[in-house]
C-alpha cells in the first residue's frame, strides 16, 4: 500500500474533500467518500480498505482526479488497492453474476479460437494485414448479451463503413482478445497482462501502424496501459471520433443534417484521455449541439464501470443523466462509448421510477449516427 500511496501521490492529500464533493457516486451513496478512503490508507488501514465493499463502488470516472488540488491520482489509487485486495482474495461484485468477467478471463487462454468476425457483412471491406487496424473490443459479446435493447455491432459495422469511405480497408483480427480493461480495473492484473501480451502479438503480426478503436476503454487501455507492452513500436492509437473529425476537417466526408443532439462525454474518452472536442466537431457537422449542464470535465458518469458495480445507485445516476439530456430539448443523446450506450439504454429498458416522458430520449452511438448521416448513402 505504501507503494500505491507513493505512486499515486496520495500522501499529498490535505483532506480538502474536493474529491468527495465532485464524486457522482457519493451523491447517491452515503457510505462512499474518496476522501475517507485515502485518509484510511494514510492511516495504514490496509485490511479495512480491502475488505470494504465501497472499494468496488468507485467508478474510476476521474471526476475527482481531474480537479484534485493535491494531484492525487485517485482512480489509479483505487486500481492499485483493488489489485491489492484481489491478491488478498477479495473480488468485486461483478454485474451479470460475473459473466462478463468470465468471458474476458476465458479470452486469455492462448489456444482459444474465437468466432468473433461473423458480423462482417459483404458490403464491408476488411483485411488481414495492413496499416490500419480496427480494434473492435467486446462488441460481439455485447451483441450476444444485450441485443434486447441495443445493437452493439452496428457500431462495429458503422466504423468499418466510415473507414471504407475514407479508402481504408482495416485489419479486423479473429485473434483479437478483450483489451483487459475491466479485469485491470477490478484488480486482476495477472490476467490483464496475459490479454495484453496476446493482443500485442496480434497487433504486431498485423503490421498495423495505426489502431482505431470505437470504444474509449480500449483506447485508454491500449494507449496508456499497453505502453510497456508496445514499447519500441511506433503505433498510433486513435478513437473513431478523432478519426471522423479529421475526415470532416479535410472534407473527405460530408454528413447530412440529423437533428438536435446532446452529448454524453464517456469518462474514459473525456477525463481519462482529454478528448472533448473531436466528438463535438462530428456532432456539429451533422446537426445542432445543445450541451447538458454538466458537460466536458464536469460530465456525469453512465453509472457503471468495468462491470464492477451495478446497483440502485447506478440506476439513479443513469435516470438523472437521462432527465438532464431530455431537458435540453435535443432529439437524441449521442455518446461515443458502447458501455455508456448499454448502461443508459438499460436504465430505461425495464421499469423506471419516473414518468417515461422525462427520460424518453433516444441514445445513439456517435459512429452510428455519423454513418447514418453519411451523404450519398
Amino acid at each position, binding site marked *: 500500500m505504501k507503494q500505491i500511496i507513493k505512486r499515486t501521490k496520495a500522501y499529498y492529500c*490535505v483532506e480538502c*474533500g*474536493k474529491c*468527495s464533493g*465532485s464524486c457522482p457516486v457519493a451523491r447517491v451513496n452515503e457510505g462512499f467518500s474518496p476522501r475517507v478512503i485515502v485518509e484510511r490508507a494514510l492511516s495504514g488501514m490496509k485490511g479495512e480498505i480491502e475488505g470494504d465493499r465501497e472499494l468496488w463502488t468507485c467508478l474510476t470516472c476521474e471526476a475527482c482526479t481531474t480537479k484534485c488540488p493535491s494531484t492525487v491520482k485517485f482512480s489509479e489509487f483505487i486500481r492499485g488497492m483493488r489489485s491489492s485486495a484481489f491478491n488478498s482474495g477479495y473480488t468485486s461484485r461483478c454485474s451479470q453474476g460475473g459473466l462478463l468477467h468470465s468471458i474476458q478471463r476465458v479470452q486469455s487462454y492462448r489456444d482459444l479460437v474465437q468466432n468473433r468476425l461473423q458480423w462482417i457483412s459483404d458490403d464491408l471491406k476488411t483485411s488481414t494485414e495492413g496499416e490500419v487496424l480496427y480494434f473492435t473490443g467486446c462488441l460481439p459479446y455485447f451483441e450476444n448479451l444485450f441485443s434486447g435493447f441495443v445493437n452493439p455491432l452496428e457500431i462495429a459495422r458503422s466504423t468499418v463503413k466510415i473507414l471504407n469511405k475514407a479508402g481504408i480497408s482495416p485489419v479486423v483480427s479473429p485473434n483479437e482478445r478483450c483489451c483487459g480493461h475491466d479485469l485491470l480495473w477490478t484488480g486482476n492484473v495477472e490476467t490483464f497482462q496475459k490479454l495484453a501480451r496476446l493482443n500485442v502479438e496480434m497487433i504486431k503480426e498485423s503490421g498495423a501502424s495505426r489502431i482505431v478503436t470505437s470504444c474509449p476503454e480500449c483506447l485508454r487501455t491500449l494507449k496508456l496501459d499497453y505502453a510497456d507492452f508496445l514499447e519500441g513500436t511506433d503505433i498510433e492509437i486513435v478513437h473513431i471520433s478523432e478519426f471522423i473529425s479529421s475526415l470532416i476537417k479535410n472534407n473527405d466526408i460530408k454528413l447530412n443534417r440529423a437533428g438536435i443532439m446532446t452529448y454524453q462525454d464517456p469518462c474514459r474518452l473525456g477525463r481519462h484521455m482529454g478528448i472533448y472536442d473531436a466528438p463535438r466537431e462530428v456532432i456539429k457537422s451533422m446537426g445542432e449541439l445543445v450541451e447538458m449542464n454538466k458537460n466536458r470535465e464536469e460530465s456525469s458518469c453512465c453509472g457503471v464501470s468495468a462491470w464492477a458495480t451495478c446497483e440502485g445507485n447506478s440506476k439513479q445516476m443513469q435516470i438523472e443523466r437521462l432527465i438532464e439530456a431530455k431537458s435540453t430539448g435535443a432529439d437524441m443523446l449521442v455518446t461515443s462509448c458502447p458501455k455508456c450506450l448499454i448502461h443508459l439504454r438499460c436504465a430505461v429498458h425495464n421499469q423506471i421510477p419516473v414518468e417515461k416522458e422525462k427520460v424518453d430520449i433516444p441514445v445513439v452511438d456517435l459512429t452510428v449516427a455519423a454513418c447514418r448521416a453519411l451523404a450519398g448513402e
Partner: protein
Amino acid sequence: MPHAGRWQVNEMKSVLVIGGGIAGIQSSLDLANRGYHIYLVEREPSIGGHMALLDKTFPTNDCSMCILAPKMNECNAHPNIDILSYSEVMDLSGNAGDFTARVQRKARYINEEKCTGCGDCTARCPSKVPNEYNGNLDKRKSIFLPYPQAVPRVMTIDREHCIYLTKGKCGNCKKVCNAGAVDYEQKDTFVDLNVAAVIVATGFDMFDPTHMQEYGYGKYANVITAMEYERMICASGPTGGHLETAPDKEHPGKIAFIQCVGSRDLQHNPYCCSVCCMHAIKESILAREHYEDIKPYIFYTDLRAVGKGFEEYAVRGEKEYGIKYIRGRPGQIIEDASTKKLTVWYDDTVNRKVKGLEVDMAVLCTSLIPAKGSDKLAAILDIELDEYGLYKSRDELTAPLDTRRPGVFIAGYCQSPKDIPESVAQGSGAAARATEVAGGAYI
C-alpha cells in the same frame, strides 16, 4: 505633470518606488518623511492598488478606503513625492547609489496640470466599457477616473475604447473641457530618473477561475469572485452596497464562500494566499451587517486565521454572526436554470456525508497570483523570480527585502503572500534598506 527638466535637478537623494499599492505608499511616505525625494511609479491611472477596491479590512472592519485615502492624499500632497501614474519602468541601468531608470509615461491624452478632475467630460462621453475597477459589474466611460477617491485626481482616456481615438469621431470631452486639458495628440513619453535605490512593490493580480469549470464562473450568474463581492458590498460600488442576485436582484438568503479557488492547488497555484480565509470571514460578517437574514457558509480546507486577533475574529464570526464553517472544498456547483439558485456539492466532515447545499450566491475566494508583467519587470530590473513567479529574495531567511541586484528591494505581496499590515511593515522595511544604501554608510 512634472517637467523633464526638473528631474535632472537632484539635490536630495532620490528613490524610485514601483507600485502604488499600500506597500509602495508606505515606502514612499517613510522615505519622503525623512527627506528623500520619491518617484512613485504606478501602472494604473491611480495609486491605491487593491486595497482601494476593498470594502472593509479584517479583523477590525475598518473601512478600507477610510484608512487608505488619507495615505493616498498624503502622497499626493507631499512636497517630496512625485507620483508618476499610468507609467511603467522600461529600463534600469547603473548601480546602487546611482541608478538611471527609464520610465514610460503612457499617454493619458490629458494634460495633468490642467485637469481639475471635475468630471464634465465623463458626463458627456458616449462610450461605455466594462468597469474593471468595479469587477466589471457596471460600466465606466472611456474618459474616466477609476473611482471617486482616485489619486491623482486626473482623468485618463482609454485609448482602446475612446471613439475619437479609434474612429476619429466624437470629441465631446475636448468640447466640454473648460480647462482645455484634453489632448488627443499626446504621445507616450520617456523620462530618465536618477535614483539611489529602487523599491519594487507591484503587488498581485487575481486568478481567473473561468476555466475551473466545476464552479461555473462566467457561466452561472450568481457565481462571483470575492473581489467582485467586495465591490458589490461596498457603498461606493456598482450596486451601492446591495448584494444582488439573478434573476430578480433580491439579496441572497444563503451565500457560500469557497476557499482556495486556484490556490493550495498543485494544478494551479501551489501556495496559500494567506488572506482568503480572513477576507471570507470578513465578507460574511459584512453580509450579516447589511442583511440580518443572510446565512453565510464558508467552505474551507484549513481555516488559517493566523494573525493577531484573527482566531478571535473567526470565532466571533461563528458565534455572533452565525457563519457556518464547513471543512470541505466543494467539488461542483450546479445551477438551476430557471431559479438561478445554485447547488454546492461538498463533503461534510462531521456527518461524513456528501451533500448538496442550495444557495443563492457563491463567492469564489480566488487565488492571489503574481502581478501580470512580473516576469518582464524582473528582466528589466535584473532580479530573479521564484518558483511561483513572485520576486525572489537574495536570502529568503535573512535578507527577505533584498534582491540579487544590490540597491533593488522588494516589499509587499510581490515578495511573498501577506496581508495588509505585513505589507505595510515590509514597505517600511524596504525604506530602511533603501536608506542604508542611499546613505552609503557601513554597506
